[in-house]
């Protein structure tokens, strides 16, 4: 891949250069770009156009880089008064939505040169842990530490619905691709399905293996650290933990759960037995495999795992230079981005290097 700086000397390009059409081979994944920030990152996303990579950080800001641009493309989205651990976009990528631990949802223009929030909705009493935009872009779902799932009208940001029922913090909420239902997953491993039209809860599933109660420290540990549906809506993936043995020391194993959505049953449980740590991100790849990103309990060996459903072991693992805290795919699914604890956002290309 050519160095953008070399090609135009300015740094930052308005359009992504055409990539050489190497065949996809995840085992050849290599770092294609790296962006540095001084503060630990909390999440990362790539916008629907594939132009930008976004990351939340522990300094309350959200950062944007051009994936094919230079480090100087770094742009600060300042507006929240606490951490942002989840962002989403309108389907065309024009709007950015940020879920803040300051009780607010931020709405922004994705591509602004000097971004300021268009609106800050006081969304929950307590952390807003997750936001997702509906497939048709007309609704926004959020969940928060008030145990509520809320659905907002877009673009005006008025409240449409509230779903109550989670007894402990819901960590993530996502729209089903059919746009009619929501799925949410809480600290206790309870998955709930909600019907947007009727406002009622439909089904629920207890995934207690993704939760642990530490008897010694008297605390619950669990929750979805990432969640997404497959494009066909048949499967739901949840990233989190399992086999908690010491909650306060963070001793547990990462797990990616795949739920058969028709049956509302666990379908596959990807666990990394030899790895002490947490799964912080999960994505479906159209080529039929599932990806997860993880952070170890201690040390630097963050990882990206690649599984084929039905197989117990990952068929490939990419070792990161530090804990992985977020994962997203580019729209063409040939590259992925990871957000790391050391503040770097790294973009990997899942092909051989161009010669």
């Amino acid at each position, binding site marked *: 891949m050519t160095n953008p700086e070399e090609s135009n000397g300015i740094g930052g390009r308005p359009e992504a250069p055409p990539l050489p059409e190497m065949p996809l081979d995840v085992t050849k994944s290599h770092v294609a770009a790296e962006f540095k920030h001084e503060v*630990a990152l909390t999440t990362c996303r790539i916008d629907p156009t594939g132009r930008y990579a976004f990351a939340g950080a522990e300094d309350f800001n959200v950062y944007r880089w051009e994936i094919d641009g230079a480090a100087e493309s770094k742009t600060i989205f300042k507006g929240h008064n606490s951490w942002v651990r989840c962002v989403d976009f309108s389907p065309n990528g024009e709007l950015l939505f940020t879920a803040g631990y*300051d009780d607010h949802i931020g709405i922004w223009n994705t591509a602004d040169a000097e971004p300021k929030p268009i609106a800050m909705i006081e969304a929950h009493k307590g952390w807003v842990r997750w936001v997702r935009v509906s497939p048709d872009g007309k609704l926004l779902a959020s969940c928060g530490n008030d145990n509520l799932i809320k659905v907002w009208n877009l673009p005006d940001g008025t409240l449409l619905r509230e779903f109550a029922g989670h007894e402990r*913090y819901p960590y993530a909420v996502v729209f089903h691709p059919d746009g009619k239902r929501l799925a949410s997953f809480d600290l206790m491993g309870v998955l709930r399905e909600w019907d947007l039209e009727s406002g009622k809860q439909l089904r629920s599933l207890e995934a207690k293996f993704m939760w642990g109660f530490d008897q010694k*420290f008297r605390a619950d540990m669990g929750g979805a650290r990432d969640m997404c549906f497959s494009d066909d809506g048949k499967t739901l993936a949840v990233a989190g933990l399992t086999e908690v043995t010491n*909650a306060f020391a963070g001793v547990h194993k990462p797990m990616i759960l795949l739920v058969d959505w028709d049956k509302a049953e666990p379908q596959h449980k990807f666990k990394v037995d030899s790895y002490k740590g947490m799964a912080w991100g999960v994505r479906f790849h159209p080529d039929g495999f599932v990806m997860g990103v993880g952070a170890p309990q201690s040390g630097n060996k963050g990882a990206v795992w690649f599984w084929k459903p039905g197989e117990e072991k990952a068929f490939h693992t990419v070792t990161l230079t530090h804990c992985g805290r977020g994962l997203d795919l580019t729209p063409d699914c040939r590259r992925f981005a990871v957000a790391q604890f050391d503040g770097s956002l790294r973009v990997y290309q899942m092909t051989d290097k161009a010669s």
Partner: protein
Amino acid sequence: MRRDIGCNRMDHAVSRRSFLGASAAGSAVVGGLLTAAQAEQVRSGQKRILQIFLQGGVSQFESWDPKPGTRLGGPFRSISTAVPGMEICELLPHTAQRMDKLSIVRSINLKTNSHRVGQLRMEKGRIAGEYPYVGSVGAKYFTPPDARLPGFIHISTRGITDNTNAFLPAQHAQLKLEGVKAPSNLVRSDKLSEEAAKRRDEFRRRLSERFSASRPGQKAYTEAFESSFTLADRLISQKSLFEAEPSAKDVERYGSHPFGLRCILARELLMNGGTCVKVTHHGYDTHAENFNFHLEQLGEFDHTFCMLLDDLADAGMLESTLVLVHSEFGRTPKINQRYGRDHWGASCSMAMGGCGIVPGAIVGATNKEGTAVSEREVASGHLFHTYFSALGLDTASDHDIPGKSIPIGDPAAAPIEELLA
């Protein structure tokens, strides 16, 4: 796993006290109605200590010394309190409303990051060595002669069986209750009548006294042994207190979780002859997920603690009860890769109030980012002096024990005068 350190025992005559045999099962005090016995206790001016130990190291950032919006401050905000100018972390909304009854010390430097050492320093008010814990010192000086309960009761589940009394008489050692479970073996067998129990115990006592008298140079052990029987008798006489189920109303207010139930029991003990009661709340040692866990743990603590504080205040007992809330250290400014904070004794906080303590005060400060004490650094010795000065002792003077000259407080420290009413 912790270890017991062998302790010094002092030569001291244990005088057995008579105790009220009558039942004195207290009922909940809601709205300030005390039983006659309780009211008498309050009038008599008995002093007490309520000690809440937040085991594991509560994060000062997430409690008494928030640094919102700073580099290491974490995601929580601060909220205003009943005291103008005083802000604490948003995780303590109920406590915030009652800060006009409490004061905060923000400049504690314990010079250790070890659970065990931090705990011992906070309890003993000394850097090292064999000294009695807060509760045992309180038991020694404030247990009335006719006390119906052991002077120092600790409601906890796990943890070391500490010898908390050091050189003070064994009767002032902590009686550790396993949560709110009544001590086992409180009930006599049917086959043993009250009369028979009494006379066989008298016989036992006579034999023990004779043995003790025959080894006059080694009284510490024999008196400790005898004292355990005295304490046992008191517990037997008070078994209704331990066996009573908390009322539905209390459970609703305090919460049905273990900390809630323990605070209900603590209240009952304080109102029915207890002198020093310590409740441990697990756990705060959040090396991972510090923020999620503090949400949980302080969420539990906040409301329950306030109910207990309210009930003591309503009963008119707050003026005579020293209230302490502390940990064995705080947590690191640096947030680690597990979203956790690690041990940090260099700049931590505690809250205190009640008997003899100026309410609504803030003592000391940490720097902007909370990485060090910036003003009025204190050690556990200063805190210890403060507690007992507030209760009316001259902490520079020696303990009231024959044959030994040991100052009550660390001579290298002194009371925090700003906190003394």
